């Protein structure tokens, strides 16, 4: 789902996002989310474009690039670094933890030889923890890209990862 940014026309992407959400200060987060969704992260060039295209004296929207960076860094769903082809999110909160989450996390780290936040050298996998995503009744919960896996056991990890080979 994440494509290298060079394959995309970033100015056009930003333009489309601004058209959809409006050239307003309160549309900044939806605009950045849109870019993030399309590219898997927000490259530096996209921040530049957002600033440039939003610079509209009549609307009174002035944002510095540093402001945009500060904004993106605040929200977990906005990434500023490229991620692997597949992003694995592991829910680390108490409800999942209590029903066996730790063993699942250990297996994930072992199988991928990754620590939290790292990407495999071949760029295939990124492993991160996340806070509760509201699926606690089927914990432990693992999210691979947009696919949700509930009631995960350590034994299932190989099988789940295998689906993305």
């Amino acid at each position, binding site marked *: 789902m994440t494509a290298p940014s060079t394959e995309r026309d970033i100015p056009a992407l930003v333009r489309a996002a601004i058209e959809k959400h409006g050239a307003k200060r309160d549309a900044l987060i939806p605009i950045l989310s849109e870019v993030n969704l399309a590219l898997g992260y927000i490259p530096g060039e996209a921040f530049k474009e957002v600033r440039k295209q939003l610079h509209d004296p009549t609307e009174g929207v002035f944002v510095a690039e540093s402001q945009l960076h500060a904004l993106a860094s605040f929200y977990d769903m906005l990434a500023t670094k490229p991620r692997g082809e597949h992003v694995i999110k592991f829910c680390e909160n108490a409800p999942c933890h209590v*029903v066996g989450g730790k063993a699942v996390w250990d297996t994930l780290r072992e199988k991928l030889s990754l620590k939290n936040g790292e990407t495999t050298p071949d760029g295939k996998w990124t492993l991160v923890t996340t806070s*509760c995503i509201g699926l606690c009744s089927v914990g432990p919960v693992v999210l691979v890209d947009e696919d*949700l896996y509930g009631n995960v056991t350590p034994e299932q990890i190989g099988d789940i990862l295998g689906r993305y080979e």
Partner: protein
Amino acid sequence: MQTKRAMILVSNDPESIRLGADDLVKSLNDALAAYELQDEVDVSTIGDVGRADILPLVIVYPEATVYGPVKAGDARYLVEEHLYKGRVATDLLAPPKQLSGHIGWLRTRKGYNPAEQRVVLERAGRIDPDDIEDYIAHSGYEALGKAVTEMTPMQVIETVEKSGLQGRGGAGFPAGRKWRFVRGAEGDKKYVICNADESEPGTFKDRVVMEGDPHQVLEALAIAAYAIGADEGFIYIRGEYGVAYQRLEKAIRQAEEFGFLGNNIFGTDFNFHLHIHAGAGAYVCGEETALIESLEGKRGEPRTRPPYPTTNGLWNKPTLVNNVETLSNVPAILRNGPEWYKAIGTPSSPGTKVYTIMGNINFSGVIEVPMGITLREVINIYAKGMKPGSTFKMAQTGGASGSIIPAALQDTPMDFESFRKAGVSLGSGALLICDQNVCIVDLVKVLLQFFRFESCGKCTPCRIGTQRSYEIVERITQGQGQLEELDKLLEMAAEMERASNCGLGQTASAPVRDMLKHFRTEVEAHIRLGICPTGVCPMVVEEEAAPA
């Protein structure tokens, strides 16, 4: 709808989709076509109905027969039996006992008799959430019509006040009083905001409400807007709730088409425009002033209060912020009257509460029960008891900022007043039930990890306090704890409670306090004896013991 003779609903929450709900819908349509029933029977989807044990689940109306789990391969049999031959497809029936225990009601306790009806989840799982006509057919938008054509805004506020409805977002603040504040605040432009950021770990009740009955949220917001004098509103929904977002977005479009949103609602001069805004992943944005900052396109850092949103909210205008569940009670209150509502629950906490129950229990999911039932009742009746081999050790209520409830408080009625008196918090309505194998220190470490990760860092006591507390507790799990550090933990707790800017910092110490109050012996065993009684903690420093 009216021309169809039956409707098939298929659960399509993420877990159902994982288990093949999409294929099932396709197969059902194919099977209907094979029997030439496609014009007589509709196939539609419903959100999470809280029955994790029988997914994908299928409900066939008008009989409301519940089947589950149903695989795509069963579709033809189900259609042939139930819809073609007109008899129940017995092989696929969901276990009926479990069903009645799910979203259920407790009958007579302490002399009053909550009628056999749900309030917030009344329609969830029974109507097609994507179909406004289905909502209307089930008394939908009746309360809004009544409000704008028969009642003055003040009468609406008085009705909500009389009902005794309290905020379900955590603090239990009387809803009617808040509405009155905003109504009375100076200014022509006012806003209503529905807080759908739901990010307390273990809480997903608002998601079920929004996925199952999105129009109810819209109707309530329009009523609130009418009452306080707002013409614009926002639903701030957490970014991860894709299905709920789409449902609400569609519902807004439908309501606009039908004239329940937009200009001249019910032919009156009341106008109300509703927008939906997705968050981008930050727990603290559930705090109302952080939410407002985020809506304005900024970092979601809580504001310093006072002033409060009731006078200085979105774009500095008077703003009403209410939780999804709080709002969802309003249409029924207007339809049935405040006395009806007050007859449910306890005198000091009327109505129902939607809980998410999980942990070492037999049934996890969503329940709606009257205020005032006890934890023991929830576990024995709704959770179908502890898992085999499990005995109750503690429960964690209300997400991370809730309380840790020891066995001694299992019989305390769960309502705002009784819990306040017992020194515990009802929080957001999550009930995480833990058995004897859960280590208190390990649990608190995980809770503190959440806080140190989610602290926005704006104020020092919270930023440093959550980090330092985590480190101390982590060292205890590694066999490196010091007794003096327990005092240090309490000192930091006091400082965070006193000097933090928002509720996150002020409540982040609750797990530490509860741990030392109820389970000090177990903590000290880690330190004095170097053992973890449950065998959970490593008691050595591991390579990457903590996710950074």
